[in-house]
């Protein structure tokens, strides 16, 4: 028996009403003359306890309410459930076959077989149990549900079943259920409709089954091919965290009841073994494992992580990622005294801030560590050549305080900045104020008027930073608590400045004297710091705010903020019907897609630059290149994390979630509905008919009681 409108059954709560009425109803106190009261004992006259009286009346009223509610819910008999199917009746069977990735897991009702093998066996058994006059169809359910065997003979369905394989896609059984339900619209009229669900009933795939309504009159059966929850360890995600330096963190999930200790995570880069770490994971939990510093050369690198664990599902033990290491920003640091020991140079703190680990000198080496800046120290004389080098000018030039500026250097620097270069100018002891004003006067944001020191008679004969621009990207990081206090450094000397017209003051001392000025010249940028890069004029270089601000200033001057860090390519879930957006700039363009298996497929974007129906099922790195072999996009396909949780659902829970609905409003289903209505036998009207004599009986009995 089933209900057409089961929600009406909540009306059964009204059953409480007659009970309450019978409990609360007191005698009406009708006075009746009587011959004598001598035969009534006193105890019989009390009425203290609230007891239900007139049980028969109460039962009749309860039955009436129940019948009324049940009639509204429109009960019907149908073959739904385990109803018998008349053998002489033809059957129209839709098999909903789960092809999601979890079906590749072990732990099936067939010893030693995967869930998929068990599902194929079960499907085959169903089909072989049908007669030649029956009809069968198969709906495959993965990321998208599809009819893999249309209505036809069981034999034909068997043939189409043979080549089927499980997919690597995440499955949603509700989609398959919806498609299977709609398939019955085309079932042979009069046939007994049956739906067979063959699945591992993975919990994550069965979440929203109650969102689907099946047509009424369908007999269904659930064949769960997974016996119990299998233990599984999976790499579910990889993220890039932090900036200095960024680190890769892999998420490992333990979907089992036992703690896993010492799981080996093996990392290979560009098909070469790179490193391995061991991880402990508690039961039914996940951990993030930090990958060691990759120290890769600039450019794209393909990573493969594999956890060595013998579990139910091997596919999710691997995870692919593509990392792009950016080209380092080339920085030239001018040093007047390169012959001095490194720590005695005026550029010491700058070079240390930009490159904490001294480089080997060759940034293009594959073995070179990943660095944001490629710092080169050179003499003022060499700067001329470097600005016109064949390999291209540096992105940033750092100018510590120079005693003299060679003639022509100002023009060369101006030309360099106008072409897009960045110039970082520092003050400091011995600075050639006259040369600076003469050679760089029209380039720098301020003129120098000499050096000043604080009033020696003051209690605190130092300056401190008093203000900095909160809107400037240079100071964004200092907004966060614990990232350094810019007011702590003490400044003992500084330049007297005359700020030029195009200059922007980004920070000042506590007496409003400019500390940091910025200006734009042509396509380039200039920053000038009114202090020394060493500890002669201040103790700032030994404060924690020095390094990040120098880094940020260099990035600002290189006009390369945001693209100087590691880039992790997108990770997509496997799909056989993938779509990829290359942007409208790539509309109607032929592209080639390099797959992980080494094959290349060609595709064409539509008018919006979209690629459609891409077969992205195989896990691994993918590249999209144009016909000139330029790389347009790179991404990785990884096993869907949602399929790694092999927890299964009980069949009776699925039964409780299934909904059946009359689809009478759809005219295209008119014939189907007719047979569906024929198949079900509603008996709501009979309940109403039963209600009528019951009502009369209740009236009679109630009145008789009052007589």
């Amino acid at each position, binding site marked *: 028996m089933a209900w057409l409108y089961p929600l009406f059954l909540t009306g059964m709560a009204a059953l409480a009403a007659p009970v309450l009425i019978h409990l609360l109803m007191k005698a009406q106190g009708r*006075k009746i003359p009587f011959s004598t009261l001598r035969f009534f004992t006193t105890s019989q006259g009390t009425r203290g306890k609230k007891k239900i009286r007139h049980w028969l009346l109460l039962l009749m009223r309860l039955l009436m309410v129940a019948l009324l509610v049940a009639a509204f819910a429109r009960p019907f008999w149908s073959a739904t459930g385990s109803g018998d199917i008349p053998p002489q009746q033809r059957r129209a069977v839709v098999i909903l076959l789960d092809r999601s990735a979890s079906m590749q897991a072990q732990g099936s009702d067939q010893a030693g077989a995967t869930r998929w093998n068990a599902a194929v066996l079960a499907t085959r058994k169903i089909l072989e149990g049908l007669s030649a006059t029956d009809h069968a169809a198969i709906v495959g359910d993965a990321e998208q549900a599809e009819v893999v065997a249309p209505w036809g003979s069981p034999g034909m369905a068997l043939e189409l079943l043979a080549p089927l394989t499980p997919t690597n896609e995440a499955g949603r059984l509700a989609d398959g259920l919806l498609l299977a339900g709609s398939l019955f619209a085309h079932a042979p009229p009069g046939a007994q409709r049956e739906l067979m669900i063959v699945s591992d009933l993975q919990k994550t795939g069965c979440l929203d089954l109650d969102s689907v309504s099946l047509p009424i009159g369908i007999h269904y059966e659930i064949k769960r091919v997974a016996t119990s929850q299998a233990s599984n360890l999976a790499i579910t995600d990889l993220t890039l965290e932090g900036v200095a330096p960024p680190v890769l963190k892999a998420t490992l999930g333990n979907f089992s009841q036992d703690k896993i200790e010492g799981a080996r995570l093996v990392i290979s880069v560009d098909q070469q073994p790179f490193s391995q770490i061991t991880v402990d994971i508690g039961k039914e939990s996940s951990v993030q494992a930090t990958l060691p510093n990759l120290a890769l050369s600039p450019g794209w690198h393909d990573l493969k992580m594999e956890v060595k664990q013998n579990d139910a599902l091997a596919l999710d033990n691997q995870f692919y990622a593509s990392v792009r290491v950016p080209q380092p920003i080339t920085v030239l640091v001018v040093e007047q005294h390169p012959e001095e020991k490194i720590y005695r140079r005026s550029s010491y703190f700058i070079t240390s801030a930009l490159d904490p680990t001294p480089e080997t000198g060759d940034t293009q080496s594959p073995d070179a560590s990943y660095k944001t800046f490629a710092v080169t120290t050179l003499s003022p004389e060499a700067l001329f050549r470097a600005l016109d080098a064949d390999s291209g000018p540096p992105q940033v030039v750092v100018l510590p305080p120079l005693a003299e500026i060679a003639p022509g250097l100002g023009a060369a620097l101006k030309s360099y900045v106008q072409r897009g270069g960045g110039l970082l100018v520092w003050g400091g002891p011995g600075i050639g104020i006259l040369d600076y004003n003469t050679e760089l006067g029209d380039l720098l944001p301020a003129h120098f008027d000499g050096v000043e020191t604080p009033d020696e008679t003051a209690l605190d004969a130092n300056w401190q930073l008093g203000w900095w621009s909160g809107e400037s990207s240079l100071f964004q990081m200092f907004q966060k608590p614990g990232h350094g206090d810019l007011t702590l450094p003490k400044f003992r000397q500084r330049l007297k400045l005359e700020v030029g017209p195009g200059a922007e003051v980004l920070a000042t001392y506590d007496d409003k004297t400019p500390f940091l000025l910025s200006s734009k010249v042509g396509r380039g940028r200039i920053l000038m710091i009114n202090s020394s890069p060493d500890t002669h004029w201040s103790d700032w270089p030994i404060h924690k705010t020095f390094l990040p601000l120098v880094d940020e200033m260099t990035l600002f001057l290189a006009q390369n903020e945001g693209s100087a860090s590691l880039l992790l390519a997108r990770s997509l879930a496997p799909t056989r019907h993938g779509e990829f957006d290359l942007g409208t700039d790539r509309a109607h363009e032929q592209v080639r897609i390099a797959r992980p298996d080494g094959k290349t497929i060609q595709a064409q974007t539509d008018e919006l630059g979209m690629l459609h129906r891409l077969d992205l099922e195989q896990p691994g790195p993918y590249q999209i290149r144009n016909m000139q072999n330029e790389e347009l996009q790179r991404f990785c396909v990884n096993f869907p994390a949602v399929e790694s949780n092999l927890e299964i659902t009980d069949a009776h829970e699925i039964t409780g979630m299934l909904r059946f609905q009359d689809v009478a409003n759809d005219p295209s289903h008119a014939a189907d509905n007719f047979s569906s209505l024929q198949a079900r036998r509603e008996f709501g009207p009979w309940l109403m008919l039963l209600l009528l004599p019951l009502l009369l009986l209740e009236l009679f009995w109630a009145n008789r009681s009052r007589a």
Partner: protein
Amino acid sequence: MPSSNFNLEMIGDEDDLPLLARSIVEGMLTGLHRSPYVGYGHEFESYRPYAPGDNLRFVDWKVWSRTDEWYVKLFEDETNFVGHIFLDASGSMDLGTGGEHKYRYGRRLAAALAYLMIIQRDAPGLVIWNARELTYLPPRHSKQQVEIWAALPQGRPRGNAALPDDLRHLLEGITRRGMAVVISDFLAEKDEAIELCETLRNHRQEVVAFQVLCPQECDLSLEEDVVLVDNETGEERVVQPDEARANYQALLEAFCAGIEKRCWEVGIDYHRLRTDAPPEEALRAYLLKRESTFVG
């Protein structure tokens, strides 16, 4: 002729008591195998036409042979018998509906008994009493029936069944041996009705006690909780019939058995009558008692 299956509901109640009484009696008589006309004396006084039910022993066959008419010989002693009918008009008799009303039933029974006595040439007397009033018609031979028919509808059941002083004086005056029929429910608070019976018995009366109960009080046929009001005392009590029924019936039965036992101990004929049963049985009981007492 009325059938023996006479139904009280078929005839109006107070409208025509004589007709009702006659119907009851004659309906009962046709069911008897022998004539109820017993107690005929031996001194011939006159003839009268034969009536159905007359004992054929008293048919004068000589007259029949001469005139071809049936005549019965009447004797002088046959009208000396005195019968008192006591009808309880206390409040407890005011119970029941329609023909099952206790007092109306008792009134019809009294009328029928009076009619039966009259047609038997007995002298019926009538006493209707309750604590407040007393109606007394002494036994007479002539025209008594007219007075009885007139007196019976007058009484109304009310008050209790205590014996008024007038009745006690009246009882002291009943010394001649006779019959007394007491129609009551015997539910008086101090058992005055049974006391009356015992007094009558002490005064050499052959007493027949009819305890009249209606179905409503026998079965306690009330479905809902009600407030019962005692017709005699005015006391009120909430009663849940379903719960009280078993105990009530047990007490009532015990009470009736006690009345019957007291009657038996002093030689009183006791009959319990339900008002939903025809009164013929009561008449038969009376006749049997009369026959056993005054006819050898």
